[in-house]
């Protein structure tokens, strides 16, 4: 990836993180931890990789993204705003009455949302349906499904994994955001899904491990590889840091579903602003 593009993506991702903090602080609720861990991946996909048009959000041949880990909607909203689907000002309406920014993504309400999600394990099935539909009518679009590592404890994920491999959905790329934490604690202590790569491999998927989900070069390399895979769905298992970018949230399970208070908010925004200023120097 060329240096300028990388810097642009880093700047965009930092703004997205600020959007996440603005949203959950304003809502006094929401899920900052997993939003921050997946922020770079969503930024990369929407700002660089996916064929989408904010002016024509329902474009039939657009690439689609299903946020199967729907509770990290604040990151998706911030990315969509950054991409121009709606004004960034609206991020502050998150979870409020009358807002298009529901606690979990609701399609039809907000431009750019390809599927309503929130109940874990379901999004990946809907992504399979979109991918199959594309195959049926020879469409060129790609479908991305973003899952949490705790989410794959849901049995439905593995029904979908079987389905995608059986129907050779090579237009489907799943991302497992492996930040290692779920509500009740570390995923390997609550209900270990490991080894994640071996499981998907056994289900017939092409598996790509990314050891740092916050490095755009590594993301680029992984998604480029996924593009070359034929007759198989691809899963990118990315090691990420829950709460990435806000020092006191990083790797802290307590920040899964809690909003920062005013003081914490100020610290988070200061840290991210400083980082942004550094990048924009």
């Amino acid at each position, binding site marked *: 990836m060329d240096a300028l593009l990388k810097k642009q993506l880093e700047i965009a991702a930092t703004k997205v993180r600020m959007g996440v903090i603005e949203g959950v602080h304003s809502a006094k609720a929401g899920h900052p931890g997993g939003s921050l861990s997946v922020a770079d991946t969503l930024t990369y996909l929407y700002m660089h990789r996916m064929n989408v048009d904010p002016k024509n959000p329902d474009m039939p041949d657009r690439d689609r993204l299903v946020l199967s880990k729907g509770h990290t909607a604040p990151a998706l909203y911030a990315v969509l705003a950054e991409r121009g689907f709606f004004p960034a000002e609206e991020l502050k309406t998150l979870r409020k009455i009358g807002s298009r920014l529901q606690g979990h993504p609701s399609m039809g309400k907000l431009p750019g949302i390809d599927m309503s999600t929130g109940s874990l394990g379901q999004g990946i099935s809907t992504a399979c349906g979109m991918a199959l539909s594309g195959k049926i009518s020879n469409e060129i679009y790609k479908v991305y499904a973003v899952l949490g590592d705790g989410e794959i404890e849901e049995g439905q994920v593995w029904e979908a994994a079987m*389905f995608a491999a059986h129907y050779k959905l090579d237009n489907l790329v799943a991302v497992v955001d492996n930040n290692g934490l779920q509500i009740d604690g570390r995923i390997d202590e609550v209900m270990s899904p490991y080894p994640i790569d071996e499981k998907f491999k056994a289900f017939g998927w092409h598996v790509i491990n990314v050891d740092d989900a916050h490095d755009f070069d590594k993301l680029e390399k992984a998604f480029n590889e996924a593009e070359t895979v034929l007759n198989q769905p691809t899963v990118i298992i990315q090691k990420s840091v829950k709460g990435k970018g806000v020092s006191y949230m990083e790797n802290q399970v307590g920040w899964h579903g809690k909003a920062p208070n005013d003081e914490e908010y100020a610290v988070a925004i200061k840290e991210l602003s400083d980082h942004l200023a550094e990048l924009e120097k």
Partner: protein
Amino acid sequence: MEKKATRDSYGEALVMLAEKRPDLVVLDADLAAATKTGTFKKAYPDKFFDCGIAEANMMGVAAGIASTGKLVFASSFAMFASGRAFEIVRNSIGYPHLNVKIGATHAGISVGEDGASHQCNEDIALMRAIPGMTVINPADDVEAKAAVLAMADYVGPTYMRFGRLAVPIFNDPSTYKFEVGKGIQIKDGKDVTIIATGLMVAEAIEAGKALAEQGIDARIINIHTIKPIDREIIVKAAKETGKIITVEEHSIIGGLGSAVADVVTEECPVPVIKIGVKDVFGHSGPAVDLLKEFGLCAENIVAVTKAALGK
């Protein structure tokens, strides 16, 4: 009278539909031979996708296909389509109001020998509780086919209930017209109204004849659309006949009887007596014998109606 199971009508209607709708996709969960989507699979193998024994994923896949604008039917037994996959139907289909048609066969106690694990008497209650879900329960071959073809043109999530047991074809295909949300008055009457749905409509018609012989003039109404229900025909019946008997091959909790009672209590309170499965599980046995045992037959409709009228 000629008989046919509405699951057979469903399979045949899908084939008829494919001729009109090139965008049709049919899904099943390893029950194509039983749900009769196998009839469609044989005719259009490229448009049929087996999801294996994984109903939850199938409903999600259906939602995803619908989101791209294609017409999709997803089929399984009523037990699994509405029961096992309930939350996926609610969250991935109902909440985004996607145009998925759920074709659920083997509904009710008339599944027969398979027993209680497969006799779904709760599906109407479950499905009608989902906001925006249309619920259709056709009574015979003619109505089932007409309903499938009509609902293909209707945009929105729809649960369609079909049966395993061959039932009399009482509708005339040359005159029958299916209108979603419109009840059909089969026979006028002034003493009492019998409102039936699905395979109970034929039994209600028989009961109406027997009652007439005994001097009781019963109005007979077929409600094929349980949601949205035809309020007008129910209120009119309540006002004009003063008593309503509902008949369904479903639990008396949450089904047709409850839906009718909801309307009547709000708009014209009169007694509503519910004939259905009385909050119990079924058991194995021949379908016809089970229907009799659980009071889902003309004889019991006659007895309950007479008792309601104090005769």
